[in-house]
C-alpha cells in the first residue's frame, strides 16, 4: 500500500478563475478511491490534469513517481482512463477502435484485446460499427479501452453513466476485482452516491475546486450521530425528561413521540429514565444516515446534486 497517484498542491486557473484550488491527495494501489462532488465542483478538471490533457497552473502530479509534467510518457503508460464520455471512432467497429489503441501501447496483442472484450461483455457486438452502439455499450467499450495495457492506475469519470442496474453492478464487481486481484489503484468519480458507498474504499469530497474531506467509507457513513425516534406517551412529558437528561442535544416532538440526534450509548440511559418516570415506551427506531445525506450535509448544495 503506497501512494501510486499523488497530487501535491494542484491548482488550475482558467481565464483568471481558480477552478481547482490547492488540491492534495494520494491514491494507493489496491484501493478504489471515490471522487465525489456536486456539478461543476472540478472532478473532471482534476481528472484531466491527472491524465495530462490539461496543464497544471501550479503543483505537481506523480504516477508511480513519474511527474505528469516532466515525464509524461512514463507516467501515462501506467494509466488507463475514461474522461467524461468515451467517444470513439463511430465509423469503425468496436474491435477496430480497440486495435487503434492497442497499436499505441507496447505489448498489447490480439489475445489481450479479445480477453478485455470478453471481460466487459461485448463479445457479441464487438465487430459492429460503434455508431450502432447504445450508450451502455459505448461505456463498456470505453472501459475495455482503458484496460488494454494492464494499467496500474485506472481513472474513470462517471463510469456508470448510462448503464442499466445489472451493468452498474457488473462494473462495481469488476472494479473491486481489479483493485483486489490486480492491485490497481482506481479513481472513480460519480454522481450516484449510493453506488460510491458500495464501490469505494475511500471517498474524497470536492466542492468548488477544494477538497473538503477524505474519509474511509465506513467512517464516513458512521461519522455523524444518527437520529433516533422514540414512540412514547405522554410525549410532552417525555420531551421534558429527555431534555433534562441531555441538555445539549436537540430533541423534538413527532406525531407519536419524540426524536433527537442521540448517540447509541445514550439510549439505555434514556430508557431507564423513562421507565422510572413511568413513561410508556412502544418502540425505538434508529434512522441511520446514508452517504447521500452526509454528502448533502457536507457540501450543503442540495439543489444541485443529481440523486441516485
Amino acid at each position, binding site marked *: 500500500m503506497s501512494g501510486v497517484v499523488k497530487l501535491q498542491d494542484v491548482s488550475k486557473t482558467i481565464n483568471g478563475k481558480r477552478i481547482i484550488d490547492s488540491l492534495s491527495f494520494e491514491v494507493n494501489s489496491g484501493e478504489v478511491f471515490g471522487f465525489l462532488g456536486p456539478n461543476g465542483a472540478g472532478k473532471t478538471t482534476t481528472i484531466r490534469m491527472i491524465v495530462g*490533457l490539461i496543464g497544471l497552473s501550479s503543483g505537481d502530479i506523480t504516477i508511480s513517481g513519474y511527474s505528469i509534467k516532466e515525464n509524461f510518457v512514463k507516467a501515462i503508460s501506467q494509466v488507463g482512463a475514461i474522461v*467524461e*464520455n468515451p467517444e470513439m471512432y463511430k465509423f469503425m467497429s468496436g474491435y477496430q477502435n480497440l486495435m*487503434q489503441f492497442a497499436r*499505441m501501447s507496447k505489448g498489447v496483442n490480439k489475445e489481450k484485446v479479445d480477453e478485455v472484450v470478453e471481460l466487459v461483455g461485448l463479445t457479441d457486438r464487438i465487430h459492429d460499427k460503434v455508431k450502432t452502439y447504445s450508450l451502455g455499450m459505448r461505456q463498456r467499450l470505453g472501459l475495455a479501452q482503458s484496460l488494454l495495457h494492464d494499467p496500474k492506475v485506472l481513472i474513470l469519470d462517471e463510469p456508470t453513466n448510462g448503464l442499466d442496474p445489472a451493468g452498474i453492478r457488473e462494473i462495481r464487481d469488476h472494479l473491486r476485482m481489479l483493485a483486489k486481484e490486480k492491485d490497481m489503484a482506481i479513481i472513480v468519480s460519480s454522481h450516484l452516491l449510493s453506488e460510491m458507498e458500495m464501490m469505494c474504499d475511500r471517498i474524497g469530497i470536492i466542492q468548488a475546486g477544494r477538497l473538503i474531506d477524505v474519509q474511509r467509507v465506513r467512517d464516513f457513513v458512521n461519522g455523524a450521530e444518527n437520529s433516533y425516534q422514540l414512540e412514547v406517551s405522554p410525549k410532552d412529558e417525555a420531551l421534558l425528561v429527555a431534555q433534562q437528561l441531555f441538555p445539549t442535544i436537540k430533541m423534538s416532538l413527532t406525531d407519536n413521540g419524540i426524536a433527537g440526534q442521540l448517540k447509541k450509548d445514550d439510549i439505555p440511559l434514556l430508557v431507564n429514565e423513562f421507565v422510572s418516570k413511568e413513561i410508556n415506551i412502544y418502540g425505538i427506531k434508529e434512522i441511520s444516515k446514508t452517504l447521500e445525506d452526509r454528502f448533502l450535509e457536507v457540501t450543503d448544495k442540495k439543489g444541485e446534486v443529481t440523486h441516485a
Partner: protein
Amino acid sequence: MLNLIKNEWIKLFKRTGTFVMIGLIILLLTFVGIIIRSQENPDRGTGSENWEEQLQTEINNREQELKDIQNAPQSMIDSYQRDIAINKYRIEHNLSPHQDYSVWGFVYDASNIIQFAGLFVIIVAAGIVASEFNWGTIKLLLIRPISRGKILVAKYITVILFALLMLIISFAYSSLVGVILFGTPETTAPHLNYYNGTITEQNMGVHLIILYSLKSINMLMLATMAFMISAVFRNSSLAIGLSIFLMFAGGQLTAMLAQKFEWAKYILFANTELMQYIEGVPLIEGMTLAFSVMVLVVYFIIFQFLAHYVFHKRDVAA
C-alpha cells in the same frame, strides 16, 4: 511511429469520403479525356510541311516587336526572347512543333488535375487534427504513452502520403486514359526547356514527372498551411476555407502586388510556381530557384513550428 501512421491511414480509409475523392478524380480524368478526344481536330497536321517557314516568320515578328517596345516590362521582353530562342532551336535541330496529340499531350494537359487533387489533400489536412477534436476522440488519443509531437508528426506524414497517393493516381490514370484514347506516338519529341537564355532537351516522360512534382509544391504548401490552421484553431472549416481561397486567389493577389512592391517576392505564392524557373520567366526580376526554395523552406518551418507549439501546449477540454 509506423503504427501511428498505420492508425491514421486506417482512419482515413474507413471513411467513404476518401473513396469519393479518389472516385471524383478518376471520373474527372475520364471525362476530360473523352471531351478532348471528341474535339480532336483531325487536321492537326495541316501546315506541318512548311512549319519551318512559319516559325521563321514568327521569329521575325517577335524580333521586330522587341525593337519597337524598348521600355516594356522586363518580363515581356524575357518571354519574347524565350519564344525566339525556342523557335530558332527547333529550326536548327529539325524539331517540328506539330506533334500528333498523344498520351504525352494528354498527361501534360491533365496535370491541371493537381489543383483538384490539391483540394482534396487540403480537406484531409484540415480535418486530420480538427476532426479528433470534433469527435471527442482526441481525449483517448492523447492519453497514450506517446508524446503529442509524435502524434502530430504521424498525422502530417499521413497527409503527405495521401498527397503522394493522389498524385500517383492522377499520373498513372491519366497515362492510362491517354494511351487508350490517344495512343502512343512512334517517336517522342523531347521537351525544350528555356532558362537563362539557354535551351536544353529533356525526355518527355522525365519532363512530365518533374512537371507533376513542381506543380504539387503549391498543393504541399497549402496542405501544410491547412494542417497548421487545423492544429492551431481546431477548426477544419476555417482551415479548408482559407486554404482553398488562397489556392485560387493567392497567385493573382501576389501577381498584383508584385507589380507594385518589391517585397511581394517574399509572399508564399510568389514562390510556389517553381515551373517559372524552368519554362518561363520569374514573377519578379532577380528571383532565383534557390531564393524560392529558401522562402518555401522558411514558410514550411514556420507552419510546422506553429502547429507543434500550439498543439503541444493546448489544454484539451473538448
